[in-house]
């Protein structure tokens, strides 16, 4: 147990290290572009999200909801040995499922939003299962398959929305509003964070984080999925149906990404499926969030909130005549360094050992093994 905790601690430490380096690089960029305003600008990044009190915090949670889920999708697949780079496609296909049900299936009354959310999960799951099936039966690399499915998903959704009259808002070149019954209820979030866009979707995201955590760490199903991820041959030897595991793992990852799309487009904040040839950014943010959260569900939860926090703060950078792209640079640097998590981890371990050695040398009877 002690050992396990120790590992978690260094993993978190490497993420925090990456964050610090990322922020420092951000400061450097600010200094280079306008050194007079750099410090207040930097301060804004760090605290901007809080300037408007509960509303600001609510807004952070609103931004965090989809990227926590796409992060979870990528992280979950990664834990089971698969690199799901197709979160973007699953996200938009899931969003389409939600919007489709949200606009057309008005007969469900107060359960309408639930049906729409379920539709997003199903659509995402189907989209995610395709690379899983290709991998399991034809040994097609899931990275390539899921990248391609990002584009197929995006264009298919654009085409369908544009081509199917009841869904399409001709004037604005985007999908129509979903019925108000399909919007996610606030679930009390409006009392906690009055005036913000956050809704029950954030609570659903947290619930999914917990479910994924339990599945991965407490169930025999998670045991199988991880075993297949670590060693496909040994899993086969142990009688695990490794093809089924791969497909299920990608299906679940797709379902979670699809849910992310559903929750965002059902939030009732004026989000519509726009007909543009651009992959959903939330999918790729998911990769960042998963990396920063070292693919652990709880880590991903915090990483998602953190990145949303920076994004919200960065919005106010415009007050100082900086462009918000600086936030993207900072996030990119953070991700860049958290991708070096392993290297950082070994550096930390080395540093620690040196420190211990010194301590031992200095005090001949020094007890170096005292760990935090």
């Amino acid at each position, binding site marked *: 147990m002690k050992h396990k905790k120790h590992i978690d601690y260094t993993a978190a430490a490497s993420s925090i290290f990456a964050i610090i380096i990322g922020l420092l690089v951000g400061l450097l960029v600010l200094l280079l572009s306008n050194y007079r305003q750099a410090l207040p600008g930097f301060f804004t990044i760090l605290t901007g999200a809080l300037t408007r009190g509960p509303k600001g915090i609510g807004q952070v949670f609103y931004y965090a909801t989809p990227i926590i889920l796409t992060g979870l999708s990528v992280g979950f697949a990664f834990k089971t040995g698969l690199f799901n780079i197709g979160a973007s496609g699953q996200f938009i296909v899931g969003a389409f499922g939600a919007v489709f049900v949200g606009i057309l299936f008005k007969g469900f009354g107060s359960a309408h939003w639930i049906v729409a959310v379920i539709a997003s999960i199903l659509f995402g799951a189907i989209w995610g299962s395709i690379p899983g099936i290709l991998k399991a039966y034809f040994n097609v690399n899931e990275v390539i398959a899921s990248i391609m499915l990002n584009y197929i998903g995006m264009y298919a959704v654009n085409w369908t929305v544009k081509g199917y009259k009841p869904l399409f808002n001709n004037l604005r070149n985007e999908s129509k509003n979903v019925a108000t019954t399909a919007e996610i209820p606030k679930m009390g979030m409006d009392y906690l964070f009055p005036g913000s866009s956050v809704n029950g979707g954030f609570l659903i995201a947290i619930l999914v984080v917990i479910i994924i955590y339990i599945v991965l760490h407490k169930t025999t199903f998670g045991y199988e999925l991880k075993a297949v991820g670590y060693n496909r041959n040994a899993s086969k030897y*142990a*009688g695990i149906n490794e093809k089924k595991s791969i497909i299920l793992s990608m299906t679940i990852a797709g379902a979670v990404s699809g849910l992310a799309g559903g929750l965002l487009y059902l939030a009732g904040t004026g989000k519509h499926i726009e007909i543009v040839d651009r992959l959903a950014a939330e999918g790729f943010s998911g990769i960042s969030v998963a990396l920063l959260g070292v693919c652990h569900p709880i880590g991903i939860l915090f990483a998602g909130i953190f990145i949303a926090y920076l994004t919200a703060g960065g919005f106010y950078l415009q007050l100082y005549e900086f462009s918000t792209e600086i936030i993207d640079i900072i996030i990119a640097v953070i991700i860049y360094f958290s991708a070096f998590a392993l290297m950082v981890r070994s550096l930390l371990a080395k540093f620690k050992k040196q420190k211990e050695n010194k301590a031992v040398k200095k005090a001949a009877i020094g007890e170096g093994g005292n760990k935090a």
Partner: protein
Amino acid sequence: MEYIIEMLNITKEFPGIVANDDITLQLKKGEIHALLGENGAGKSTLMSVLFGLYQPEKGMIKVKGTFASIKGPLDANALGIGMVHQHFKLVHNFTVLQNIVLGIETTKNGILKMDDAREKIVALSERYNLFVDPDAYISDITVGMQQRVEILKMLYRDNDILIFDEPTAVLTPQEIEELMQIMRELTTEGKSILFITHKLNEIKAVADRCTVLRRGKYIGTVTVSETDKKMLSEMMVGRKVNLTVDKQEKEPGEVVLKVSNLNVMSKREGHTRNVVEDVSFEVRKGEIVCIAGIDGNGQTELVHALTGLESITSGCVTLNGEDLTKKSIRYRNTHGMSHIPEDRHKHGLVLDYNLAYNLVLQQYFEKEFNQLGFLKSDAVNQYADLLIEKYDIRSGQGRETKTRSMSGGNQQKTIVAREIMKDPSLLLAVQPVRGLDVGAIEYIHKELVKQRDAGCAILLVSLELDEVMNLSDRILVMFEGRIVANLNPKEVTFNELGLYMAGSKREEKRHEA
């Protein structure tokens, strides 16, 4: 000084372990010096230090009387030190010639000039009696030949200090004999040889002196002619070791495993062929049947066919009278079949899982450990602790240890414990002691005999003649996918068995075993 290499008081530490603790190794010019030790004794670390892969914390290295600072393999090579690795470092779709010159190709204006290299290689192979065809592809020549290529690689680089890392593990008895001869010839030509092994027979046969390591410590250096195998093994293990397996006579019971007319086709390098051909045999309760043969004669595929890892083309496998031919792997695993796989890293363990998780790899889904889809971690932990205690599995952090960080012997014990605890009626053990040291071998052999005495049917696949002769009640020899002999270990000699394995001798009438 007459010493060509001196490693003096080498100490190398890794986090939490002292891999080499004040070790001194002195190699005389023109001698064969054996380096003996169990797995984890520090042999590989010591050699890595010599090759500059690790820098020692203390100690120094002298080559030919002068202090040398070795920062990497290139430095070592420049000092004339060469090594034949246990797993050969050859490019399989290159020819022998190309492999030998790889890295130091002779060129003219950027164009390869192979003729000089070819001449030199032919001259070297004549001088040392190392005949190989320079234009043959590595993938087409035998393992013994591949080893010769490795030796030629060292000679081509004018190395005069040659290190052999467990060179006999992959060879047949005849090939081992030839290798020994080659080693002797090399020393008469002035080369010095460092020979890493844990096989005592070979040390007795070929080495002049022997340095023994145990758990990172230097135990001593002895002149081989003045010592015997018992003493060497005691130095290595630190206690008295029983080198032969004690086994009572036992009359085998009813048939447990029955294999009839089994065929397995396999795709290899583009074309399909029968890798297991019309194989039929039986294994009875309370007997150890050993499948002997040189690696790659269909043993792996046969075992995979029995366990369901590979599909069969035709034939029938029955266990306790039940036809298993079409059953799933899980069904076989839960209906009396246990399997100690050939490759413990590929099949036997999920290396990134901890010890406890690996110990339940075949049972996590059973009622004992599984409640409504949730893993009962308390039950898993209890069970793991029980097995760790019972089978003396040693590791850094008990059941929480990642199996990747455990020694080979303890990894193997983990698998053996897991498979035996299932109380199988048939135990398939494929090279169960591969790469293990004397202590672990003794342990696992005892455990197999214990299972046999308890009424388990054991099918043992082994490449090691000692193991075959010591352990088995009956020997089946496999050659090119067929069973070519069904022998009684008491009536066959080592040499005869070697001839069967090499395919140069076949039984006149094929026994339906």
